[in-house]
């Protein structure tokens, strides 16, 4: 079994029906996150196994086909966390994005709009709530340069040089789902803002694991290089991206459908 599976296979789901990745589609992932230290409840009583995996958010991608080589998707990426095991989430961060990208092997970004907001949702009555945002940002690739513009006064453009096609988790997932991705070198714009340049998409040996009681052959790729923990992307026989696995987080596919 591949090292990336050691915590997460129980969260994988089977998808017996095919989803046409070249048509408009909707993908929804649960985020399962690993904690290695906060396994106490509010009374400081140790609970649960170690290491501990929690459900800590979701990712939804809606892709629309267009008659051109330009593609479009809506993204809602939500991460929410608890301070204590078993407690209601105490902090939530949302990225909502509209992305135009290219119908190529890496889902190269063209331009995008994103909204970021942070919401503390502490359950203790005496706490105040101080949400931030939403902060709106616009991005585009122009002459090999990423330009990020915040719409609020006081924060001006950030420009980042690139060398390779600029991709991101969302468009890469869609490219793998549609069977159009390929091993190559990319500049990775993590959360549409943090540039991790010069990463390699490399093929992994096939593996077979049991998903919901059924042996399932998986083929995969890794995103690996400087400034990132390797990110493993695993697909089933129908090219469904059933999991994207880092070292402390796994995105597991729970819904896939043509819309």
């Amino acid at each position, binding site marked *: 079994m591949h090292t990336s599976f050691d915590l997460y296979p129980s969260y994988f789901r089977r998808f017996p029906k095919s989803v046409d990745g070249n048509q408009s589609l909707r993908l929804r992932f649960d*985020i399962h996150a690993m904690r*290695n230290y906060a396994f106490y409840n509010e009374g400081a009583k140790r609970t649960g196994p170690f290491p501990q995996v929690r459900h800590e958010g979701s990712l939804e991608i809606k892709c629309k086909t267009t008659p051109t080589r330009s593609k479009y998707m809506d993204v809602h990426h939500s991460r929410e966390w608890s301070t204590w095991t078993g407690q209601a989430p105490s902090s939530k*961060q949302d990225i909502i994005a509209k992305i135009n990208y290219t119908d190529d092997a890496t889902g190269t970004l063209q331009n995008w709009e994103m909204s970021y907001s942070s919401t503390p949702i502490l359950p203790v009555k005496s*706490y105040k709530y101080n*949400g*931030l945002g939403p902060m709106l940002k616009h991005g585009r690739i122009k002459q090999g340069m990423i330009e990020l513009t915040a719409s*609020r006064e006081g924060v001006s453009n950030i420009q980042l040089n690139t060398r390779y096609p600029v991709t991101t988790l969302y468009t890469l997932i869609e490219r793998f789902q549609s069977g159009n991705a390929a091993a190559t070198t990319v500049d990775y714009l993590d959360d549409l803002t943090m540039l991790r340049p010069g990463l390699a998409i490399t093929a992994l040996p096939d593996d077979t694991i049991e998903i919901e009681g059924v042996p399932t052959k998986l083929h995969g790729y890794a995103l690996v290089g*400087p400034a990132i*923990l390797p990110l493993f992307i695993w697909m089933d026989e129908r090219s469904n991206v059933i999991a994207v696995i880092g070292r*402390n987080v796994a995105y597991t596919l729970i819904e896939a459908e043509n819309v």
Partner: protein
Amino acid sequence: MSYTKETSRFTRRQFIKASSALSLSAFFTESQAAPNAGLNRASPDCRPNLLFLNLDQLSHMALSCHGNPHVNTPNIDRLAKRSVDFSRSYTPDPICCPARASWATGRYPSETNVVINNRPLRSNLPDYGQWLGKNGYQTVHIGKWHVPGRPLHNSFQLVPHNSHPQGEYSDNLVALSFETFLANRDTARPFFAQVGLMNPHDCGNAPRTSKHPFPFPHLKDQLPPFPPNFDFDRREPEQIKQMHKGLMKFTEEWTEENWGHQAWLYYRMVEMVDVNVGYILDTLERSPEHENTLIIFSSDHGDANGHHRMLFKDNFYETSSRVPTMVCFPGKVPAGLLDDTHLVSGLDFFPTLCDYAEVDPPKDLKGMSLRPLLENRSTSWRNYLHAQSKATGRMVVDDQYKFIRYYGSETIQLFDLKNDPWETTNLAYSNSHQGDCNRMTAEIDRMEQTLDNVDLPDALMRRT
């Protein structure tokens, strides 16, 4: 301890020498303001913004600007070039909660009650969020806090982002939340922002992976070899021997590839958070706040990362207890100055923040303001730096030696940091160093007499 001697920046000695012959302005790259440009005390609006940007588990040696060939940290290197980089900086305690409680209160762990993780902070000690908030600052916390017993909203006026999960999937968001704060903040007041990034703390989870063969054969040449102190002097205090014993449960069978895999992952986590540091610096540098913001950059502790065949923290070896500390203030603080002379502690941050905020610090802080050092003013500085660990451990460092003692253990350690920077030979049992051991023992005893220590349970004082 650095991999190579730093040569690209000025040392303090060079700085002093140059300042007598040249215009000091040559050392201030961000503006032409004089180093001692006064802050207008009559107008609180003129006081500087204060950004305390902290990482988790970053060793001093784990940066490319400190000569490490296995990691590339262009953004922290950029900060170093704009800062005074204190290369002899130590954490007050090489584990999260005690170090962070000491940052926040300026007191030693034996005084704060947070002598190990998850013990609550003594309630009657003010913290820097409270103190600066009372004195006219807009205070905000984003990211990791981890000071038990002190709810964030008792310390900071704004807590828009309060979580500390693994850095792999949260540090991007901490950087974005800081950007959002900056765009929305109350510009009528200066701010004090504590921004806590998590990585490279995720290495706590890496041994799960490192026990497997490295999955990328084409990258095997990137795996770091055994560190130079992989073989070392085994005369260690019982408390550290116990840590080795615990680690052996999963490292006993490790090959050089497994150790290299672990170190490789650690350095990727350092690079990962370096991108987030860069984003925060870019955001600040492109804002109107930039010229009037003091940045203190540090880490709560380091990581053993295979040195002395150890992983993680909670020990006094350099990889775990020595941390980067950089202070940047455009035009007010020299840029690119390497201070390898003064012994600096995380206890010094609270008094430094108060000094720049022009407010009197709470009484009995144990640290010292770094401002005289930053502004090249003559000052008397400490000859000994103290740190604590595991409730019972005490470390004292002077200009050459490090002495370590744990109550309940008969084994002590003395290392000559000048001649043995990798701490491979314990000199405590050498006849010629008994005088140094006695001198440093007396220094620990002297320091203990000055502390307002809490009573700790016997079980804690006995624990190994």
